Each structure stands twice: as structure tokens, then as C-alpha cells.
């Protein structure tokens, strides 16, 4: 029942040996999912968990040479993945470092026709705020909407610290794609500013899994413009692929601004039209694929210049 295994490209020499032990554990954790296209029920265990987050862990905007210190550190609450019954905290995504693990929340995979059951627990003892999960792109009853409306919504929209809720979703025929989920409770504004969002990646019934899947969430964090909660090259995700890989990019925006997502040296098709830049507004999302054929170290970034200068830029490395 192995759907896909997150493949982590082997870094070279000394660095590979240093990074090796952490990487091996991640592959084991992430290698879960059904192998066939038959509809199944997929269960996820997610918590709203307090953490301390550094937007610029290497302390520098390497392009402009600006240094940053402890002012880029903020206490926050993020979605984290757990084992069944929230017994053990897991990494949200395979990563070979300890700083890219909490924003965005876990990438939830499914296929069209699947039932998705998300067990949610609020561990927010830091701010003692209610939280919820609201999912785009899937079907559900109002009791799984997770959106607060006084007098109408129920416990799904206001899960208090220590409480749990189970969201029951269905990936219908129109669900294939990449979709956001996020807090939609009374604390939505603070939660989204602190990185409380994630993505649903839903494949068609007969759609093959990509060799690489890159999640890009464009959102403001603190005073900076971030990708997956980090700002500036080196801090934002360093995506890697090999020539011949089927690469999938999952892109979404959170916040109140529009972004123009651009990848250097590559194009993709949107409704049959080649593109290398695509606009994405608040809570909008899209995905695209290509068969990799261009070696090099490439930029990906938001092309709104003020956003790019404030950190919304990263690098993508392709090797043979």
C-alpha cells in the first residue's frame, strides 16, 4: 500500500554524511498512502501546536546583504501531523533540516472518490485560543465546515484548547487539484498571520504520482513576505529534482494580497497555453507539472517586486 515515497536527493560529500541520519528517518515517516486508484478512507491526525518560529533562520538576506537577528522570531501555533490518537508528533514533511517542518501544515493526500477523515486536536496552551480546520476543494456537511458563524456553527468551528473534532470530507469529481486548508475559527486572523494553514493534494483516479511534489505557500509573516513561513533565499525551501523527474508544483496564497508566481527557465501549460508566471490571490491555488529537462540552480519567486524584495524568493536545483 505504498502510494509514493518522498525522495530526498542525496547531497554531496561531507554535507550528505551530516544530513544523512535525519533524512533516513523522514523517508520512513512519509512513506504512507494507498497504492491503487480504488477509493479508500484516508485518516489523518492533526494538532494545533504551539511553537517558536524563525522567519530567517540563517539570519541574512543573501541577495541584498541585510542581516537579521532575533527580531524575526515569533511565538505561534501551527498545524502539526501526529500518529494515531495524537500519541507522537511527526514531521509535517520530509525535510533534511530542522527549520522547515512546521509551516505549512501537513500535506494531506487523497484521490478523487476517497473519504478523508481529519482528526483535529487543539493543543494551544500558549494563547489559549479556539482553532478549527476549514478545507477548500472537497465536499462535506456543515458540521465539517470549520467556519465560525455565531448562532449557526457548532464545535467544528470553535475547537477549544484540549478539545478535539473530526472533520469528514469527500474528494468528489471536481476535487482533483491542490487546495488550501486553514483556521476559520474566531482566531482566524491571528492564526493565518502565524502560519496556520496547509494544503490538500488530490489526484485524479488514474493520475500517476509525481516524482517530486513542491508545496509553495505565499503569505506574509511578520513584516516579511514569505514562502512556507520563511523569507529570503536559503531560508525558503530549496527544492531539488533530477532530469527526467515528473515534477509537480502546488502553489497557493494566504493573506490579503495577490502574487505572481514565477519559475526561471521553465514553462507549464494552463488550459493549453504556455506560462512561466501565474497570478494567485488570497486562498486561491493551482498546481502544474512538467517533465524536468533543465539542469541548473534556478530562482522561483513572487514577481510582485516589493514581495520579492521582502523575502518571497527561493531556489530550485536540478541535477542530472
Amino acid at each position, binding site marked *: 500500500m505504498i502510494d509514493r515515497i518522498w525522495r530526498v536527493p542525496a547531497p554531496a560529500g561531507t554535507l550528505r554524511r*551530516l544530513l544523512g541520519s*535525519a533524512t533516513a528517518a523522514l523517508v520512513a515517516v512519509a512513506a504512507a498512502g494507498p497504492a491503487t486508484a480504488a477509493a479508500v478512507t484516508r485518516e489523518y491526525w492533526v494538532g494545533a501546536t504551539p511553537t517558536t518560529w524563525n522567519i530567517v533562520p540563517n539570519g*541574512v538576506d543573501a541577495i541584498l546583504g541585510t542581516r537579521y537577528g*532575533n527580531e524575526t522570531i515569533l511565538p505561534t501555533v501551527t498545524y502539526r501531523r501526529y500518529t494515531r490518537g495524537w500519541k507522537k508528533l511527526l514531521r509535517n514533511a520530509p525535510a533534511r533540516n530542522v527549520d522547515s517542518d512546521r509551516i505549512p501544515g501537513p500535506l494531506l493526500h487523497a484521490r478523487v472518490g476517497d473519504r478523508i477523515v481529519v482528526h483535529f486536536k487543539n493543543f494551544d496552551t500558549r494563547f489559549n485560543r479556539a482553532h478549527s480546520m476549514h478545507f477548500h476543494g472537497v465536499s462535506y456537511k456543515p458540521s465539517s465546515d470549520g467556519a465560525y458563524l455565531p448562532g449557526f456553527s457548532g464545535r467544528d468551528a470553535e475547537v477549544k484548547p484540549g478539545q478535539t473534532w473530526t472533520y469528514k470530507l469527500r474528494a468528489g469529481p471536481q476535487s482533483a487539484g491542490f487546495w488550501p486548508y486553514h483556521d476559520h475559527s474566531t482566531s482566524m486572523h491571528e492564526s493565518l498571520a502565524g502560519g496556520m494553514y496547509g494544503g490538500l493534494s488530490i489526484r485524479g483516479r488514474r493520475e500517476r504520482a509525481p516524482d517530486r511534489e513542491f508545496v509553495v505557500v505565499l503569505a506574509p509573516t511578520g513584516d516579511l513576505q514569505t514562502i512556507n513561513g520563511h523569507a529570503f533565499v536559503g531560508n525558503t525551501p530549496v527544492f531539488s529534482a533530477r532530469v527526467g523527474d515528473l515534477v509537480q508544483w502546488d502553489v497557493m496564497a494566504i493573506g490579503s494580497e495577490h502574487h505572481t508566481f514565477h519559475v526561471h527557465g521553465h514553462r507549464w501549460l494552463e488550459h493549453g497555453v504556455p506560462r512561466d508566471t501565474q497570478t494567485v490571490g488570497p486562498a486561491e491555488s493551482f498546481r502544474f507539472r512538467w517533465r524536468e529537462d533543465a539542469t541548473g540552480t534556478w530562482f522561483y519567486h513572487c514577481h510582485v517586486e516589493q514581495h520579492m524584495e521582502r523575502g518571497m524568493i527561493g531556489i530550485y536545483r536540478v541535477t542530472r
Partner: protein
Amino acid sequence: MRCLRVAGLLAALAATVPGLALAQPADDNTHAPGEPAQVSIGATAVDPANIAILTGERVEWHNASVRDHTITSRDGLFDSGVIGSNRRFSQEFSAGGSFAYFCRIHPFITGTVDVAPVLLSAPARSFVRGDKVVLKGRTHPAAGTVGIERDSGGGFVPVTSVPLASDGSFSASVPAEGPASFRAVSGTDASAPVRIDVAAARVLRVSAVRGRRHQVVRVTVSPPLPGAIVRLQPYVKHRFGWWTTHRARLEHGRRASIRLPRGSTASVRIVLTEPDGETSTGVRRMVRLPG
């Protein structure tokens, strides 16, 4: 007298351990205004054993054990009589001072109530020069503000003034420049002084040894920093700087070990952070891995 001996022992201990702030009695300011501070009586001890309250406030003891107890002043000022299981006793303290008490049935159960018009406490942790010391306290809210004074050897001098919250609590952040005593002053009243010892700098000692299957980086920190985390960072070109690959929490705030696979001979950086794992203390050290 027992209470005085314990206090003297603590003071002596603090004097011999650089960077150790003398523990203060717990200021139970969690009780609502007008409500008594709470002390729980267990089978063998009271919790908290030492409590600090403002002049005029009450303390209420709740017998949470199945045994009978008494709360009896060593100076004969109050005596609860026998307090049965799940029963309560309260006492108002209208005058300042330190009031030791015990249980007549179980004399090993002891406690103190410290009563003052202004309360002040500091974190029970170590400090080095440049740290920020957060002093917290409480007084009667009508005062409006309190002054914080420091004595570095030449007598108390004012360093800052902070406003009071509606419940009379206050918080002041002062730089740790050297060993000093602090007190909070409200009108003609002053808190008991709080002693802060400050080391010149926090020292990070790092060594790396090669084992049969792994190499191990050992870190020791002096003075200790409880709950702190050390990060191991190689320089990574595509990360444009030092990038954390491993992290470990210090045991007892003093030491940590990080196990790495054999083979690497890189120079790595060890960075000491606050307990949140992110905020750098500014203390770092390089070490070369043996391979």
C-alpha cells in the same frame, strides 16, 4: 528557628554558585482580588511551603489529605485547631513580617507566610552580563506606579519606574550588568531585596570524539541555562549561511551530546539558544569533526 536556618543555608548556597538567583517565596497572585491565597495541605507537606502575600490579605489552607492537621503559628499568633479532611482554615495577616507555622500533629509539616506591602521576585535562573532580568511583583493597586531600585554595593539607587496593572501587579525588565540587589518601592514602602548574581559571560565548551560507529559532539555550558537548546550547524552553500542539521536540549541546563554519522570532517558551529530553541544567546563556538 528552623526557618531561619533554611534561609541562611539558601543564602550561603547562592553565594557559592555564580549566576544563581536566590529563590523567592511564591507570590500567589493568581487569586482574585479580595479572595484568599490558597495553600493545600497534603499528607506530609503543604504546597506551596512558602508563600508571599500583601499586607491585609488572607491565606486559606485546604486539607486535601485524609489525615487531620493543624496550622499553628510558631510565635503563637494563630492556631487552626484540628482541620479535618477536606476542611478549610483561613487567617488574615494585617502586619508585615515572616510567619512560620507547623502542624502540631505532624511537626515535620512546616511552612511560612511572608507578608509585605510590596512583593518582588526574580526568575530562579542564572544570568550573564547583557541578559535581561524580568522582575515581577505586586502591591496595592492604589499606588499607581512602583519604582525599581538597584544596589550594586553603594546603596539603593532608582533605575526605572513601572505602572501597576489593575490588580496591582507589575513587571520590570532591567539589564544584568553585574551582581546586584533590587527592590521595589511604593511611597514609603519597599519590598524585601532580591539578589541577582551575574557571571561575566556564559562559556560554551565543545569537543568532538570519534566512536566506532558514530562521532559525538559534546557540549557543556557554564553557568547553566535550564531548558536551553544547542544547535549544530554546518555552513551550507545553497543555504547561504550556517544551517541547523541537529539540535539537542541541555540536560540540567549544563550538557548535551549530539551523535553524528562517521565520516564528516567539516567544521561545524554550535549555537546556544534560549529554551524556545530559536532565540540566540549570542554564545557560539566552532569545532572540527574528527571524521
